[in-house]
């Protein structure tokens, strides 16, 4: 396994699960932003393509002790991604400042080895060519290329917005590598009406997310497997935090 770079900038998310109601606005905003095709029947969740999926979590107790929580799952942009080293053709990599795991569609041969490696199911395959209802393809944004069938895709943290923010900084004479908090946020972050997602540079103390990820109630999914995700979750509810990783019966949960 290859070693991975450390980056000066590390884009990350802090998602407050106590604020998410599972309304789905982020999922819709993601599809529209990233030119993901709609599906007339998306009831087979194992074959419906959406970079961001909201999982339903339950504390497993019967009524009336039952509690429910919703967990939006973008790509974790792992610090040590299990998907990158396995790709036979370097279609995915983690080499750009910011630490976003890239996926280059014209390079992908569609072997799906990366999908097998990802325990978060963050990677999706284009089982068919994407189609839009007649005329709806006119609403495609110019920012993200449309993927043909046969390639794997995943959340890119709306990487194009990063590029746009840098270009805007350049024409305004600012340093593109020192973006202000909020100059670059993902489509889901922007859309969430509850403000459940905070996005920014985890390494930059001027960004709100920097402190949030260090909070007492912050955790990451499957931390002990060593993937080192750049997406953090926050919940004051212990049972929610416990569902973030596998625990043996006698093990204590963090926070």
């Amino acid at each position, binding site marked *: 396994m290859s070693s991975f770079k450390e980056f000066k900038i590390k884009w990350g998310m802090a998602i407050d699960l106590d604020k998410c109601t599972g309304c789905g606005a982020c999922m819709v905003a993601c599809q529209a932003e990233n030119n993901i095709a709609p599906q007339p029947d998306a009831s087979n969740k194992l074959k419906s393509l959406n970079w961001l999926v909201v999982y339903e979590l339950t504390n497993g107790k019967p009524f009336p002790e039952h509690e429910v929580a919703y967990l939006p799952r973008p790509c974790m942009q792992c610090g040590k991604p299990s998907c990158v080293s396995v790709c036979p053709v370097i279609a995915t990599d983690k080499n750009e400042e910011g630490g976003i795991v890239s996926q280059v569609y014209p390079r992908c041969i569609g072997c799906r080895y990366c999908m097998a490696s990802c325990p978060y199911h963050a990677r999706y395959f284009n089982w068919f060519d994407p189609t839009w209802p007649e005329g709806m393809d006119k609403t495609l944004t110019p*920012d993200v290329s449309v993927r043909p069938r046969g390639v794997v895709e995943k959340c890119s943290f709306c990487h194009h917005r990063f590029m746009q923010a840098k270009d805007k900084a350049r024409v305004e004479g600012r340093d593109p590598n020192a973006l202000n908090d909020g100059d670059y946020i993902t489509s889901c972050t922007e859309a969430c009406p509850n403000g459940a997602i905070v996005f920014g540079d985890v390494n930059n103390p001027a960004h709100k997310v920097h402190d949030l990820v260090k909070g007492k109630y912050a955790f990451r999914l499957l931390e002990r497997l060593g993937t080192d995700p750049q997406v953090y979750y926050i919940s004051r509810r212990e049972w929610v935090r416990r569902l973030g990783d596998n625990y043996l019966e006698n093990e204590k949960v963090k926070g």
Partner: protein
Amino acid sequence: MEDRQLNSSGCATDGGKCCGGGITPFLVGLVVSLIFGWWVFPDMLYSKKEQPIRFSHKVHMESAGMECKQCHVLREDGTFAGLPSTASCADCHSDVMGSDPEEARFVNEYVKTGKEVKWLVYQIQPDNVFFSHAAHSLDGCNQCHDFKESELCAQCHPDVANSDSAPTHFENKLTGYSKQTMKMWQCERCHANENHYGVTNSSNACFVCHK
């Protein structure tokens, strides 16, 4: 049936005798395919197209004293406008200015009708490529180089500043791209050059150029 088979196998056995021709057929085959591969095939692969209007960059640069970025504008949000719209050409060419019949044709066919010109772009890139004109600025490159604006542009684009007519556009029939569309290795001449990294903050990471 039996006979025929025996005959055919017989021919195979005495094949050694008719082993004539020596190396000649091999050489003929070699030469034919070399000619086909190097001269005929490239011609077959591309279709030639001319620009809808014979546009002279030279006139605009020399006579009108314009710079590239006056028409090929970087917008305020950092995006690049690429080719000027008919409306922006009409800022000057609202009426025929010179004696060039092509200009007159442009004014009559496009400015007056408000139609956009379907210019052919020599460097058109696939959708999966993100190219930032803002990042490839004169300021950035001239920290070390000493480019004039047109020289910088000509690093990737055909050097049209001094030409009176636009070059022929060769379109690849298979891929739909221009013959001059840069391949990734051409981008990497700079991007994979580590001397650039500290100076321009460039890198050769995938997502710097892909979308």
